[in-house]
C-alpha cells in the first residue's frame, strides 16, 4: 500500500495517459488497475477519465459479430453452381440468332455461314447454279462481317465520347482506378 501511494505521487500525466491507453487496448494487468483505482480516489478528473475509458473498453468488448442469415449463406454456397451454369450458357450463346445483334456475334455468325458454304463446296461437285448461289452467300456473309465491324467501331466511339463528355462535365474522374481481383488495391488514409 505504501508503494502504491509512492507510485501515485510519481504518476505524472504521461504515465497516466499510458495507463489509460492500456486500459483502452484491453492490455491492463491487475497491478496497474489497482494503481488507477487508487488514483481515481484522490482526483475527480482522473476518475472521470478512467470511467470513460473503462466504459469504452467494456462497450468494445461487447460488440457482437454479425451473423449471416440462412438465405445469404445459401446464396453464397450456390455461387459455384450458378457460376458454372452461367459459363455453360455463355459458351453457346453465339449459336442463338437473337444474340447476333452485337458486333462480335455478327462476326461469328458470318464466319459460321462461310465455313458451312466452304464445307458444302468441298463435299460435292456443285453445278453452276450452286456456285452462283455460294458466291451470293459469301457476298452476304462478307457484308454482314463488314456491318458488324462498323457496328463495333461505332459502339467503341460512342462509349469513348460518353466518357469524355462525363469527364469534361466533371461527372467522372479523369483516371479510372485499375482493379485487379488477385491483388486488391491498397486504400488507406482516405477521408470518407
Amino acid at each position, binding site marked *: 500500500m505504501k508503494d502504491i501511494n509512492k507510485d501515485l505521487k510519481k504518476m505524472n500525466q504521461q504515465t497516466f495517459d499510458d495507463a489509460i491507453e492500456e486500459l483502452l*487496448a484491453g492490455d491492463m494487468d491487475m497491478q496497474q488497475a489497482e494503481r488507477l483505482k487508487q488514483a481515481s480516489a484522490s482526483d475527480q478528473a482522473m476518475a472521470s477519465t478512467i*470511467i470513460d475509458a473503462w*466504459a*469504452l473498453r467494456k*462497450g468494445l468488448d*461487447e*460488440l457482437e459479430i454479425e451473423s449471416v442469415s440462412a438465405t445469404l449463406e445459401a446464396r453464397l454456397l450456390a455461387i459455384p453452381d450458378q457460376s458454372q451454369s452461367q459459363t455453360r450458357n455463355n459458351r453457346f450463346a453465339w449459336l442463338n440468332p437473337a444474340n447476333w445483334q452485337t458486333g462480335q456475334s455478327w462476326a461469328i455468325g458470318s464466319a459460321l455461314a462461310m465455313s458451312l458454304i466452304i464445307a458444302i463446296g468441298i463435299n460435292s461437285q456443285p453445278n453452276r447454279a450452286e456456285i452462283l448461289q455460294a458466291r451470293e452467300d459469301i457476298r452476304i456473309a462478307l457484308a454482314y462481317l463488314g456491318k458488324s465491324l462498323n457496328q463495333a467501331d461505332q459502339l467503341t466511339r460512342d462509349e469513348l465520347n460518353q466518357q469524355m463528355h462525363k469527364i469534361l462535365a466533371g461527372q467522372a474522374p479523369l483516371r479510372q482506378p485499375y482493379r485487379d481481383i*488477385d491483388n486488391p488495391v491498397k486504400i*488507406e488514409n482516405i477521408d470518407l
Partner: protein
Amino acid sequence: MQQRFNAMVKQHQHRVFTLAVYMLRDRAEAEDVTQETYLKLWQRMEKTQEEVKRAWLLQVTRNACIDRIRKRRPQTNEVPEIEDHRDPVFEMEQDQLGKWLKDAITNLKEPYRSLVIFRDVQQHSYLEIAEMLELSLSQVKINLYRARQQLRAKLPKVETT
C-alpha cells in the same frame, strides 16, 4: 475446389459480413458486398490453386465497402453526426452504448475505422491486421491508439460531482 470454397464460406462468412455491416451500417448492402466478395473468391479459385487467405477475403471486402461509401457521397455530402445522448456513458443501457459505438466506429475515418473493427470487434492479431491493411506493426499500433482516442473524445462525458 467447390469443397474448399464451401469451407471458406462456412469459416469466414460471419467475419466478412460483420466487416461490411460495420463499415456500411446497412445490412442489405453488406449482404451484397459479402456475395460480391465470395464471387470474386470463386473466380480466383477457378484461376489458381493457390491457397486463399482470410486476410485476402477481408481486404477485398474492405475495398468493396470503401468503393460503395465513395459512391454514396454525392447524395450525402456530409457524414451524419452521431446522435447526441444526454445520458453519461455509464448510465447508458448496454444496447444503447452498443448502438452508439457502432455509429461512432462507422463515422471514424479510414484506416481508423477498419483498425477498430479488425482489432476490437473481430479480435485479429496486430500482425494479421498489418498484413490486411499493408501497414507496419508500429503503424497499426499508433493508428489504433489514435482511433481509440477519437472514440474516447466522442464519448458522452461522465459528470462527476
